[in-house]
């Protein structure tokens, strides 16, 4: 069996991660639905994760720090998703909407 390191060049994985990040950014910036924004953010976080893991596996596979870092990011992403959803529910309860355009209270 050939390892993935020799079969797939690093740049391809990074490009996938980068593309995924851009898709996630695009989704975060343009979705009207709050939950959609949160999905985009999750995508961005996952893209970052892929990036981290790729760099660990291809460059320093013996170091555990890479895996630990990715784990951290997953935990943070989960916590942040929970908080974000809680906020979305709270907004829906008070304003009866999940449209981000209609929650522009900070509009100046």
């Amino acid at each position, binding site marked *: 069996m050939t390892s993935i390191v020799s079969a797939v060049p690093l740049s391809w994985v990074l490009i996938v991660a980068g593309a995924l990040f851009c898709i996630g*950014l695009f989704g*975060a*910036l*343009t*979705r009207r639905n709050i939950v959609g*924004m949160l999905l985009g953010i999750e995508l961005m976080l996952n893209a970052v994760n892929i990036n981290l893991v790729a760099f660990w596996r291809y460059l320093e596979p013996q170091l555990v720090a890479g895996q630990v870092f990715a784990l951290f990011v997953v935990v943070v992403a989960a916590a942040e998703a929970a908080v974000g959803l809680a906020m979305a529910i709270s907004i829906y309860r008070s304003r009866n909407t999940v449209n*981000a*355009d209609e*929650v*522009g*209270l*900070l*509009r*100046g």
Partner: protein
Amino acid sequence: MGVSLQYAWLIPTLPFLAFVLITLTPVRRNHRASAWLATGLMIVASILALAVLFETAQGVRIAANGSVELVALESPAGENIGAERFQAPEANIVQTFRWAPAGDSIITMGYLIDPVVALLLAMVTVASSCIHLFSIGYMADDPRRARFFSFIALFSAAMLLMLMASNLILLFIAWELMGLCSYLLIGFWFDRGYADPQQITPRAAAIKAFITTRIGDVLLMIGLCYLWFKAGSLDLGIQAGQVFDSEFLRRIGQEAGPFGLTTATAIALLLFCGTIGKSAQVPLHIWLPDAMEGPTPVSALIHAATMVAAGVFLVIRTYPIFVASQALPIVAAIGAFTALFAALIAVGQFDIKRILAYSTISQLGFMVAALGIGGWTVALFHLLTHAFFKALLFLGAGSVIHGMEATIGHDPNRAQDIRNMGGLRRFMPTTFLTYMVGYLSLVGIVPFAGFWSKDEILAESLLTGNFLVLIVLLLASLLTAFYMTRQILLVFYGPFRSAALVHGETSPEHGHAGSEPHESPATMTIPLILLALFATGAGLLNLPGIHWLSSFLGQPVHAFNPIAAGLGTLVALIGIGLGIAYYRRAFTTENERDPLDMQIPGVFAWLNGRFFVDQLYAASIGRLTLALEVFSSTIDRIIDRVVIGFDRLTTFLGRVNYIVDDTLLNDGADQIVRGATIGGNGASRLETGKAQDYLAIVFAGMLVLGVVSLYLLGR
């Protein structure tokens, strides 16, 4: 003994009290009460003045420490000829109090009675009382007569104060007060106007009198200041530090003063200018004829008996200075010239009061000439007799006018014109007889008073060798007799020329006219009779042989000079004869001209026109004053333009300031604000409130940072 001398200060106080009461209390609403109050107080004052005269005649003298002594009055030996023999009479009483400090000395005020003063006090108070009484009848129809009586009371108080002043300052104050009263009384009928614009109204006449005498008064004041500067005080007296100290007089008689004159001459001339103004000498005589616009009692009191005599009194009072100076010939010249000049003018006048006014000026000229040749005693004598007979003549004229108003009405131009009169002796016998006494006295017929005094003046001029003065005065006497005879004939003799008005053939102008002229009431005729007695008897004052006046004044006596007396009587008789010859049958028809006018029309026109002195003054000094006025108003206008220029400049700068302020600063600030607002508005568009937009901004910022750090800063 000496009581009345100590209470002599009451003499001017009583008429002043009358003035205060009438002016300031409701007495003024009751015209009868005001009139009798003034008259009553004046009579009391005259009784007191007569008592003072009596005591002075006894020789009572009260010294400064209050001791009373009797001094025999006698004339020293020798002839009283000329100024070199001048001896001032000694004072009978001097009471002064300290009034104000002035430098190192103190000005005192008070009164001083000596024989001269006592005589004049008696004369002024008696004449004033007669005229007060006369006015009660004369002014009976006037709605403002309370005011009249308050004014003549004030005037009498001022005159008496002047006579008794111990100090030249007080004399000057009273002098000015008299001028004020003269103004008030001449302009008493201030609302009277005339149809002819050339004719002077009482208002204008009052102003003219005041301003003309003012010219003299200013010069007098300068003289007093100069005298004070030289002498150190203005108290009258012969002690050191006072004005007549012999040491001082000798010093100023020799000291050189301005314009090449000695100091004494300069002072004397300046003081004499006051006399020229007040006593109506040429060239300041112009106010007196126009002062006849006032009521006749005013003319009698002020412009015949008293105020005009004040000028003569001033010279008598300050005679030691005149003696020490070289001004006496000038005084004599002015006096003599005035006597002749005024007598000429009187010949050509038709207004009964103006004839008497010019006669007064002429007689004052006699007095001033007498002063100039050194005979102050004779000048004083003539002053006394003149006061009585001139007041008599004026009051008689007033009585005549009063009677004429019954026929002609209250138009003064017609009631006072002698061409409208005639034959009045049949209608007003008392007035006629008293007027004749005054006339004979003025002309100088024995034994009336005027003869003695005029004779003494002529004698004085003869004996001092002033023949020019003698000739001029004789000419003036001749003219006096001539014009007075003219007046008598035209007023009292012949047919009554206004008879047509009596029987209603032609209608009169105003008032209750149309009746025959009647004799005046008793309040008017009694003073006339009284004054006639004085005019007759006053000559007894200095009869030759007795010479009471000279001894009373302590002066050496004249002997009676028959040459002078003869000359005087001769010219008087010539004058009377000429008068009768010309005017016996004059004006027998309505529109006849004056006989002199027919014979010498050119000369008569000059005499009637008063030698056109008023017109000369108007053309010269009047034009000068107008030119000064134009000059001053031009300067005024230039200053105005400058001020307006400043105003325009300031307005312009203000506008510039406004523009700068408004455009630059205001609008500039506005623009800045707008810019800030727009900027703010623009910036606030970033704040959409949408989280995604904020995220986008964060991403963009990160991109920029990344590019900058990787590519720019990483090098």
